[in-house]
Structure formats: structure tokens, C-alpha cells
């Protein structure tokens, strides 16, 4: 695929990794915010290619993972109601609520459907006027324009049977929360490239200045990630703390103005609880007064939800980067993708799932030593 495959070239990747080795003189801790970047790093073994002194800390950039348990439980309650078609991205289907998940609700007879785009859910509302269609609008700023358009279209068409269950969270407040937390060890950030394609990166210089950390807008393919890491290390080694754009082919400083305009018309900023972290002020979006009618929480008054997190689950520590998934005592034992205790183990963007699915229960040496019999590109 053009503009994708080229950025996965193994030979260039190894040269870039060698370059990083050359310029690194001290240990550094760098956080990649976005779960998609975590996934790509672990899957491609980017962290295996870096010098041992550089530690990639996995951030809370998994909107599925940070959606509050209470909202998951509300989603399950709504989806179980007769007369409801509950639509969601595939990611949400196995996220555990207090009791069960959407997949189980489907198994018990709920009409739960996976869709590719929120507009598909709007189509379903048009075609099923006798049903209430609810779309689970989970995501960071990247997904918000799509969700905004869905309610905008629903409103324009006068649909009475479409609503959005909103769980939108924002990246800059999360980064600030991490940087301002006592004991923070993160020294530099890879900013989420696709979030920035929507929002731009003009919000970040004050953060870089206040906390003296380099912030580099980074893509998702191996070469983009290595370049983002390299630029961060260059700044760290030089004692600089600036905002840099390593994803220029997609991201501009101002971002996507038409998207920002509609976002402003549909959403308003609100405090949000991040599962495993707590409430971060002004860190989320909700539908504003103009669009409040389309809010599923308002339309379906779900009460009597009793939420209970598993006491064994350390997802919060993982999301804050305080521990690695393999450090969690339940990892691979009570908690596996088949029986997840928390969202980080079931979301394909969650760090725990990435570690489990790409085998990070082998030690680094064991993993590096495996495959020594294979011929092929020499490892850097």
C-alpha cells in the first residue's frame, strides 16, 4: 500500500536503530501516548531494537482502556434492552464490565452490531425506524470528528431514534496529568500523530516549556516511530525541550480546521473520569446543549448500576506507565485476553494485551535468542 509499506522497510529501520544507538549517551524514559503506537512498537519489536538505556513507557492512549467502568456497565444495560440496536467499534466488544461484556449481551439475545463507521449506525437508524439505535462513541480526538458528524447528520435528518453514548477523552490534559504527577519519570513524549492531524500541535509548546520536556508529533509505522524516538533522543541529549513534527506529511501545526469547527458546534469540554487514573479536569468532551437530545445517557435513564473493579487489576498503574504489564501479579495468570480483568488486557490497543499477544512473557534475552536458526535479514 502506497505511503504505508515504504514506512515498514526493515533495512532502513535497522539503520535508524543503529543511528539511535550512536547518539544515545545516557538512559532516557520516553512515553508514547497513543495505544496504536504501543501496539506498533510491541508488534514490530521496536523496543527490542533500541539501546538498553532507552525505555519506552506506554501511556494511557487507549480510549477503550480509559472508558470508566460505569459507562461500560451503562452500555451493557442499554444494549440488553429490547428494541435497541447497539452499535460499536469492534474494540469495545470484549471489554469487561462489572458483569459480562457486550459480546455476552449479544449472546444472550441483545442486538449488538459491529460497524466500521459511526455513519453506518446512522444508516441503521434510518432503516429501522421502530428501533432505537445507539452508537458507542469512544475515542480520542481522532475519532471525535466522525462521531460529531454522526449526530450532526442525525439532527439534520430529524432522526428521533439515534443517540450517541459518549466517551471522548483529550490528550493534552492527560499528558499534563502525567507530567504533573509526583514521581513522574517520563522525560519526553511521542505525541499521537493522528490526534494531531485533527487538532494540530499548537497546544503543546506551553506544556513543553512548563515541564521542560521534548514533545515530538510521531506517526505509527516503524520508520515513523524510530524517527520520532530519534528526534526525542537528540533533544534530550542536547538538553532541549521543544515541540517537533516528525509526521509532516499528515500533520500541520493548525490541524484540520473544518473538523475543529464541527467539533466546536457539537461538543463541549467537561471533566472526565479515566478508568484506572481518576478524574482529570477538562479532559473530555460531551455533547453540548444543542445536541444534548442525542446523548444516550440522557435518553436511557440507567440507574442502579453497581460497579466493581477487580481488586487484582493493576490497569491504572499500567496506564500511568508506573509498571509494565508483565510486572502485574495477575498478568498471564488470572488475567489473560480470554479472561481479562481490565480493559488493558482486552483492548487490542491496551498495553497488557500487546504484551500478552506478542509474547512479552518471555524475557528479552529469550525472545532475542529465539529464531536464531532462521536465515533472513540480520538483526541490528
Amino acid at each position, binding site marked *: 500500500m502506497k505511503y504505508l509499506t515504504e514506512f515498514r522497510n526493515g533495512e532502513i529501520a535497522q539503520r535508524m536503530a543503529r543511528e539511535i544507538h550512536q547518539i544515545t549517551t545516557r538512559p532516557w524514559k520516553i512515553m508514547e501516548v497513543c495505544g496504536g503506537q504501543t501496539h506498533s512498537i510491541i508488534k514490530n519489536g521496536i523496543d527490542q531494537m533500541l539501546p538498553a538505556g532507552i525505555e519506552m513507557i506506554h501511556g494511557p492512549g487507549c480510549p477503550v482502556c480509559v472508558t470508566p467502568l460505569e459507562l461500560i456497565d451503562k452500555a451493557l444495560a442499554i444494549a440488553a434492552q429490547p428494541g435497541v440496536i447497539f452499535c460499536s467499534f469492534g474494540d469495545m466488544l470484549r471489554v469487561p464490565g462489572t458483569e459480562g461484556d457486550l459480546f455476552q449481551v449479544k449472546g444472550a439475545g441483545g442486538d449488538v452490531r459491529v460497524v466500521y463507521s459511526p455513519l453506518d449506525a446512522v444508516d441503521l437508524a434510518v432503516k429501522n425506524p421502530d428501533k432505537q439505535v445507539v452508537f458507542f462513541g469512544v475515542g480520542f480526538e481522532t475519532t471525535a470528528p466522525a462521531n460529531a458528524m454522526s449526530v450532526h447528520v442525525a439532527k439534520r435528518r430529524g432522526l428521533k431514534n439515534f443517540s450517541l453514548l459518549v466517551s471522548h477523552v483529550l490528550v493534552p490534559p492527560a499528558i499534563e496529568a502525567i507530567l504533573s504527577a509526583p514521581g513522574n519519570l517520563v522525560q519526553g513524549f511521542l505525541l499521537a500523530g493522528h490526534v494531531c*492531524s485533527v487538532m494540530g500541535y499548537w497546544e503543546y509548546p506551553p506544556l513543553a516549556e512548563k515541564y521542560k520536556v521534548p514533545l515530538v508529533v510521531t506517526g505509527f509505522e516503524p520508520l515513523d516511530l524510530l524517527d520520532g524516538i530519534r528526534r526525542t533522543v537528540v533533544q534530550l541529549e542536547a538538553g532541549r525541550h521543544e515541540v517537533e513534527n516528525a509526521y509532516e506529511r499528515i500533520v500541520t501545526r493548525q490541524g484540520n480546521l473544518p473538523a475543529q469547527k464541527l467539533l466546536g458546534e457539537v461538543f463541549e469540554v467537561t471533566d472526565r473520569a479515566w478508568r484506572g487514573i481518576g478524574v482529570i479536569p477538562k479532559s473530555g468532551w460531551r455533547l453540548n446543549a444543542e445536541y444534548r437530545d442525542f446523548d444516550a445517557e440522557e435518553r436511557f435513564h440507567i440507574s442502579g448500576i453497581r460497579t466493581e473493579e477487580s481488586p487484582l487489576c493493576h490497569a491504572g498503574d499500567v496506564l500511568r506507565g508506573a509498571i509494565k504489564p508483565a510486572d502485574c501479579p495477575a498478568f498471564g495468570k488470572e488475567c489473560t485476553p480470554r479472561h481479562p480483568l481490565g480493559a488493558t488486557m482486552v483492548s487490542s490497543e491496551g498495553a497488557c494485551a500487546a504484551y500478552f499477544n506478542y509474547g512479552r512473557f518471555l524475557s528479552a534475552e529469550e525472545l532475542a535468542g529465539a529464531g536464531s536458526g532462521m536465515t533472513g535479514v540480520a538483526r541490528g
Partner: protein
Amino acid sequence: MCLAIPGKVEEITTEDGLRVGRVNFGGVVKRVCLDYVPELEVGDFTIVHVGFALSKIDEETAEKTLADFREMGLLDEELGTEEEAFARAAVAPQSACPDGSCSN
């Protein structure tokens, strides 16, 4: 957060008041809403997330980035072995201060 992939716009129409394109992702074609990137024309490349185009791919920049990547590391091979750089990085104790001035 954010599986967005690049595709080429093959056709643009209007459906229900929305600007919609048929976008080709390496041979697989999907209908995509183009409302957020009004400057897109047939033949342009765009990055698409959940059925929405979010940004036009600046091809010139993309090519330049690739060219830079290809250059990277080609000249440095004489400058020192990776083992030496690796050893340098591993020696210093874990420290929160980039310049090593604090011991914790």
C-alpha cells in the same frame, strides 16, 4: 486511537448532503466521507479513520521524508560501533535528570 490508513481518492460524489469519495486502499475500495478535507480531489492521497478522511497526504513531503530515511545511517557506519554506543548508554544509573545532576 487511531488506525488511520492512506488511500487514493478515485471518485467523488455527494450523498445525502455529504461529500463522499470512493477511496482505494491498495486495491480495496471503500466509501469515505470527505467533508473534513474539502480540498481533496480525485487522484489525491488521504489518511482515513473510521470512514472519514482526516488529512490530505502531502506527497512531496512524504517522498522527502522517505528519502531522508533512506539516507539515514548510511554515512554513520564508520563513526563507531553500536556496541560502544550501547555501552555508553547502559553505564549511567537510572536518573530522572537528563544531565545526571541528581542521583535519584
